């Protein structure tokens, strides 16, 4: 059956510089450059290999949670329990180690804890689809954090850095230059990026986020996909917990507080909006470095953490406003 009119439909996307430059990611790169110039002006030690890696190490442990958060938001879901999963996983790690288990066992316990927490979120979110995931993970957030507080009280569980290889996960450097954590992060990011943009799983995530019902009618296993993503999110909160524990050497019940908002904020600034089905992975990755380096630079000039919050928040609000401003300007021009 051939089309009657013989009309041809173009199947290649034409390349356009204008299109490329107007992309949100181009804007983020520009901002990243600005932040770097600012940091160079602040510190003369910043613009060197050691200086830059010192800077990236200050935030990449938390950035492990950004990777799966991209998936969560693309699905149109949200998970605000990751900060608490991090805390609970780190607590289990510390407690297991201090109970006399070998460190490798403690690390596996942390990963298992994260995975189980993710499973719980996933089961609730997929079995009770009428519940808003924001509310579900708000609830589990309180539960996971509460468990930390029950286990630790106001004590902390320390001595973790007595194990050299564990401490090196955060502090160690490959060839004395590149931090191991940086390498692990880059490898993970490549895998996550490929999954999001080059696999059937990724395409299905975008379909679910764009229109969940249409995705279901297209034969996509919507709840299965959501479940897997929640589990991965829990697992990577566990990964973040390991690196965070390695950096601090001891864990108290306040660890990772507010990091869920950092992770979500980074994604949104990167263009992966909470509506679902939007944005791309590269944007989120640029945004990891943009916000991380900004915070690092402001830290160098002793900007207090409260002021930092205001700056981050304002940046986020402005960034989500800009695309809408663009549309308004276009409308005005025509009118």
């Amino acid at each position, binding site marked *: 059956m051939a089309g009657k009119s013989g009309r041809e439909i173009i199947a290649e996307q034409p390349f356009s510089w204008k299109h490329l430059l107007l992309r949100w990611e181009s804007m983020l790169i520009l901002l990243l450059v600005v932040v770097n110039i600012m940091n160079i002006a602040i510190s003369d030690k910043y613009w060197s290999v050691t200086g830059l890696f010192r800077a990236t190490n200050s935030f990449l442990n938390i950035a492990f949670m950004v990777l799966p958060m991209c998936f969560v938001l693309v699905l149109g879901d949200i998970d605000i329990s990751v900060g608490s999963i991090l805390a609970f996983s780190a607590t289990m790690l510390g407690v297991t180690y201090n109970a006399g288990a070998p460190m490798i066992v403690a690390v596996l316990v942390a990963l298992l804890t994260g995975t189980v927490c993710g499973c719980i979120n996933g089961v609730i979110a997929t079995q009770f689809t009428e519940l808003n995931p924001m509310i579900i993970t708000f609830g589990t957030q309180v539960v996971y954090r509460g468990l930390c507080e029950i286990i630790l009280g106001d004590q902390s569980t320390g001595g973790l850095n007595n194990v050299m290889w564990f401490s090196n996960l955060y502090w160690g450097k490959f060839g004395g230059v590149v931090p191991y954590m940086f390498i692990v992060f880059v490898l993970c990011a490549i895998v996550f990026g490929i999954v999001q943009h080059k696999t*059937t799983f990724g395409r299905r995530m975008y379909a679910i986020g764009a*229109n969940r019902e*249409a995705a279901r009618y297209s*034969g996509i296993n919507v709840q299965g996909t959501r479940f897997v993503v929640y589990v991965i999110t829990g697992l990577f909160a566990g990964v973040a917990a390991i690196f965070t524990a390695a950096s601090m050497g001891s864990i108290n019940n306040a660890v990772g507080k507010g990091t869920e908002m950092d992770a979500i904020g980074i994604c949104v600034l990167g263009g992966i909006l909470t509506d679902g089905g939007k944005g791309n992975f590269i944007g989120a990755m640029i945004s990891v470095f943009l916000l991380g380096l900004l915070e690092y630079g402001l830290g160098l000039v002793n900007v207090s953490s409260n002021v930092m919050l205001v700056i981050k928040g304002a940046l986020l609000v402005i960034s989500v406003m800009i695309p809408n401003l663009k549309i308004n300007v276009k409308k005005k021009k025509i009118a």
Partner: protein
Amino acid sequence: MASEYVLELKEITKIFPGVKALDKVSFQLKAGEIHALMGENGAGKSTFIKVITGVHKADGGEMYLNGEKVDFKGPNDSQAAGIAAIYQHVTAYPHLSVAENIFMGHEKVKHGMIQWKEMYAEADKLLAQLNADFKSTAEMGTLSVAQQQMVEIAKALSSNAKIIIMDEPTASLTKNESENLYRIAEKLRDEGASIIFISHRFEDMYRLATRVTVFRDSKYVGTYDVDKISNADLITAMVGREIKDMFPKPEIQLGEEVLRVENLSREGFFKDVSFSVRKGEILGLTGLVGARRTEVIQTIYGVEKLDSGKIFLDGKEVKIKNPRDAIKNGIGLLTEDRSNLGLILDWGIGRNITLTEIEKYGNKVFTNDKAERAAAKQLAEEVDTKAVSIFDKVSTLSGGNQQKVAVSKILASDLKVLIMDEPTKGIDVGAKAEIYDIMGQLAQRGYAIIMISSEMPEVLNMSDRIIVMCEGKITGELSREEATQEGILKYAMAKSLKNTAEN
């Protein structure tokens, strides 16, 4: 200066980014007439209505109300001037009462307090005028579409509208409900209101209107007296070309039975539904709204669960738990609601077409963009989709072309059975003929097609066999030769007829 026309628009032009939505369009509405406005999707009817109601500001042209020039700054101005619009999709507050919906924006207030009693009484009075079968205290969300429309009409009356615009009011109504709407429209006209009636249905126009204005491609084509223009001429005016054969149903030698369902039941929805469909056959499944046709095919497609009953494909029983199982077994569904269930409007045409079968073009893990693009191009061209590139967003296409994309999408899968739920809903007449043509070709290619439809001409002309449902049961089966509109209606209302007889 008094004028013969209550509303007159001269050379209205409206420009949207990159498109002229209205190009020097003129329109005249006489006092106390029902004036049909017709044209294909994208002809500019909706934009035109929005200019009248002040939602859009015209970029050129003049508008006269009772001979006086007016310039509406917004919808409030037009409301104050006595113009009310009832839109195709009811824009109501589902959790509020009917009375609250009617008086939304102009509540009865005394000393800053809402006068509930007065409002309910007034609302009930308005509803009584419309012969409504529900109370003003009912919650809006619990009403049927037809009833909600009545509320919208009551709302128009409550603001003393003299000019009432109805935008495709019959699109989602059954025959009986449409009949009731006709009566209401006539009553309003007799009471002195002037009505602009937009519809795709020719029967609406013939039944109600005295004059009809046709738009095509954002331009004014002409205004005709309804009793002086033939159907064919009107279609030509709308489409710009002649449609020779509206229903090109090919003669096909039917093959063996492909799908058979036995005693399908779902508690509270339908009971003991059995039918079969053969290779190359188009099986019409019809009935009034509430006959549960869509629910039946949703369970066959695995969207909803079945309580009991069996589904056989090529003689073998299959279990279908979700749409994936259905597609794997060769059953595809073209949904009734293409913009919410069928397609992802935000996505390009290509991605939509290949979504169901991404694994076929790549492998289990990775996608293959190049193969997908080639396949999407071929499938979209096969059904003659009017689009520039496969990257065009589906939301930018007209209803008819969106439907073609939806058809290409189900053709991407290897199917044996195509279920088409209201395949021409909300599509203009030119595109309808094309969809029928495609259906005929698909039957010729050996698909077994189940077509669910409420449109009589479509059911009568496209089906090889017709099954009629009423309130969750199959009440009759007719062959193509013996089927008539009356015959179908008799079965479609079998239950209610029986009930009346018993009383």
